[in-house]
């Protein structure tokens, strides 16, 4: 029997380990310069998601809604969609409106591309923002499908012509923290290669204090840069569990931009892959500061190895985050005993086998389509020492008396979720420090002696 059996036992879902599809699309649209995410559905979706996203980022997150009522559900949501976009234009002066559907509008069969075509015809004289749409029925997939779908939609609907070749790289980072995106752009800057990171939430969801309230925060991937992605030397897209067709494959298929698909650069070896690819694309060796970062990471691995070696971890969250964590934890000798994701059919087991090959001491139980009820049921007998994942695992960490190392989304029971670093050698080191310290803190708290140095 495959270890990656999808949840066979329970019909009901308890404490889901995933979020809904339109949320991922909204987050991605939020990372485009001048972008306003727009949910075509009832008002509640936008409001719930705003609240949820705000709790992690602690930033204003305006998501517009077509606010459909009962009549619209019967006669179609087209008029509300158009009126809603007009109102967003009036109030926000957006550069882009990213329209994502919801279960309601998908089920009533609203044809959003047609509505948008009509809209362009009816109001073309107004100086329209870019309108991008993505189909995100919440009964299909998870927020990561929404994210990847939105990224692909942005690429396919905005980048429609071959741009002149340039010394530039496209990076599709997936759902990573604002800090991680900043780190990625810093790395490319140091390599001396221009980068289009899509989406770029580093500023739009982690902005500075300003003189005045801005309707749309500054930052985000410029629309112009998206249009020129076809002229890049290559695309780097993070994720070993991505859908077959993505923004990266689309650029490769249509414009011959080589697509380099790789895992999230978490830990030493996955970061090596990323840096080596950048070296190839930029034609320059990595700057010395990254040699140093790499060296420091290995040095720390050695210095701290006895604290963590042989510890047992349960990890959960988005499929590619789980794969990345597996790669990293294998390197430091932490045995991943259970790896769970709410997503289904993403090839997580194969991805974990790839990234831990030759390093991990054991293959974890891999579970797709799980909720926390399933994870808890299995984890009891697996006796984990650590949990690694987002805030929603806290109730289990508390019940089992083990530390939870918070990564991913949402982190809404700690401060600074948007600034958690995980990528590259530097991110790995930061994550490593946190894990080692969590183990030490636990040992210290459980020990009656009260050692003041460890």
């Amino acid at each position: 029997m495959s270890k990656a059996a999808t949840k066979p036992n329970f019909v009901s879902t308890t404490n889901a380990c995933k979020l809904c599809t339109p949320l991922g699309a909204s987050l991605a649209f939020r990372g485009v310069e001048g972008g306003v995410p727009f949910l075509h559905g009832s008002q509640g979706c936008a409001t719930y998601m705003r609240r949820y996203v705000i709790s992690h980022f602690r930033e204003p997150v305006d998501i517009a809604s077509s606010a459909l009522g009962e009549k619209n559900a019967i006669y179609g949501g087209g008029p509300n969609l158009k009126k809603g976009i007009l109102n967003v234009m009036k109030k926000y002066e957006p550069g882009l409106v990213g329209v994502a559907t919801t279960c309601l509008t998908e089920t009533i069969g609203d044809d959003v591309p047609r509505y948008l075509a009509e809209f362009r015809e009816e109001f073309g004289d107004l100086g329209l923002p870019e309108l991008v749409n993505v189909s995100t029925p919440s009964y299909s997939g998870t927020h990561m499908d929404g994210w990847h779908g939105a990224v692909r939609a942005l690429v396919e609907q905005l980048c429609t012509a071959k741009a002149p070749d340039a010394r530039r790289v496209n990076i599709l980072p997936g759902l990573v923290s604002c800090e991680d995106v900043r780190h990625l752009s810093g790395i490319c800057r140091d390599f001396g290669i221009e980068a289009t990171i899509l989406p770029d939430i580093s500023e739009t969801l982690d902005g500075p204090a300003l003189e005045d309230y801005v309707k749309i925060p500054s930052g985000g991937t410029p629309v112009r840069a998206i249009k020129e992605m076809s002229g890049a030397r290559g695309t780097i897209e993070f994720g070993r569990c991505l859908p077959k067709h993505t923004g990266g494959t689309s650029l490769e298929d249509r414009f011959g931009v080589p697509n380099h698909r790789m895992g999230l650069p978490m830990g030493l070896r996955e970061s090596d892959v990323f840096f080596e690819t950048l070296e190839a694309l930029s034609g320059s060796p990595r700057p010395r500061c990254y040699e140093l970062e790499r060296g420091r990471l290995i040095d720390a691995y050695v210095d701290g190895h006895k604290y963590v070696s042989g510890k047992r971890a349960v990890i959960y969250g988005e499929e590619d985050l789980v794969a990345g964590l597996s790669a990293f934890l294998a390197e430091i000798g932490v045995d991943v005993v259970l790896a769970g994701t709410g997503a289904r059919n993403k090839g997580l087991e194969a991805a974990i086998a790839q990234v831990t090959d030759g390093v991990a001491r054991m293959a974890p139980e891999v579970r797709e389509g799980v909720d926390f009820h399933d994870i808890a049921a299995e984890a009891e007998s697996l006796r984990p020492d650590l949990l690694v994942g987002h805030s929603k695992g806290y109730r289990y960490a508390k019940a089992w008396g083990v530390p939870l190392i918070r990564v991913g989304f949402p982190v809404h029971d700690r401060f600074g979720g948007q600034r958690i670093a995980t990528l590259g050698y530097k991110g790995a080191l930061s994550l490593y420090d946190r894990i080692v310290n969590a183990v030490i803190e636990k040992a210290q708290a459980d020990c009656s002696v009260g050692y003041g140095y460890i």
Partner: protein
Amino acid sequence: MSTILEERKDQIHLSGQGAIDIACNRESLAGAVSQRACVFCGSRVVLYPIADALHLVHGPIGCAVYTWDIRGALSSGPELHRLSFSTDLQETDVIFGGEKKLEAALDELIDRHSPKAAFVYSTCIVGIIGDDVEAVCRKMSEKKGIPVLPVQSEGFKGSKREGYLAACKAMFRLIGGGDTSDVSPVSVNIFGDFNLAGEIWIVREYFRKMGVQVVANVTGDGRVRDIARCHGAALNLVQCSGATLDLARMMEDKYDIPYERVSYLGIEDMADSLYKVADFFKDRDPGIVERTQALVREELEALMPELARMRRDLEGRKVAMYVGGSFKAFSLVKAFRHLGMQVVLVGSQTGTKEDYAELEQITDPGTVIIDDANPLELSHFIKEKDVDVFVGGVKERPIAFKLGVGFCDHNHERKEALEGFEGMLNFAREIHRSVMSPVWQFVPRRANRAGRNRKEAVNE
């Protein structure tokens, strides 16, 4: 380009400037980024704290996951309400219908958790695919021997208010089944309090001291058994703007139980609420008025000197508030007077015409009154009115913070008890902590202004 859309103008009013005729209770405007939620949200808010019931959200995963354990509604016993249950409908369910899945999910979850009742929330999609939730509930109720209650909370079928009504209808079906033989003639039900941060325990303690039995909490720290017998109480006390008012009316019709509207926020409203109860029962319990006066006196003796101390720092500071229901706004306007603070903006998601008329009465001239606001309007008025502290929920917090304005979370996610006399003290402390923080001097909007002021002073 203007911050306020033409169609929104009649949902905003300035106190003291002509007769108030605010347009409210209308659907949110498409594209306006309303702070409101949906019908499902209204139902979920009301029923969520019933701690020994199973709350199963019938729909795709989002609606369940965004409402998983995000509120500070505490329970003194079972905590089933803190788990998030969903049928997690998939594409095939949407095509072929979700009834079978719902039935199987109920079967499984009721066996696993042995709840005292189950609520099944319909979400948008259920209203479209036409599942007969009522029939499934009836069947499972018979099979499992507990009430299994459908909540007609399809998100798009109105606003939060319709959700309140759907929740009240579901609860009403529970009422009447329980034993009332030991209910005192001096007894109440607490409606519309959700026991955020243990607030209902503060209020119940006051009633205990007054000699009033509380039959049921509806719904904070709520129990199915209590709700089933709450028709035995002599009086319903209804807090919150309408979340449970429908239920009180239904009970008045069917069981002839009167209700009083109360608020446990702020000094006057808290005391008034207790006096109302004392007054209602004074014929049955002649000592109650005196006991209540003693209680209020004792509480105020402890509270007032503390408030006076904080008032010295807070005097003259300006407040904006945006709340879900307007009862909270009434109480807070008065509460801020005790701190010497001036309310310059007050708004709500679901206020009625009467609510806004009352707000117009109790606020100072020039106060902005606003229905169903959005981030841009709120930020516009925060700047225009030069607000020092904002009272609202998580969605409003970053708006305040970006503008360099203090903030007090007065919504369902709060972890600080703000009701009762001790809650008033917590409230004042929280406002004080935020307003008096040194961080504001570094926020550009204020730092630059301070810089300009200094410059002007030098130029003079």
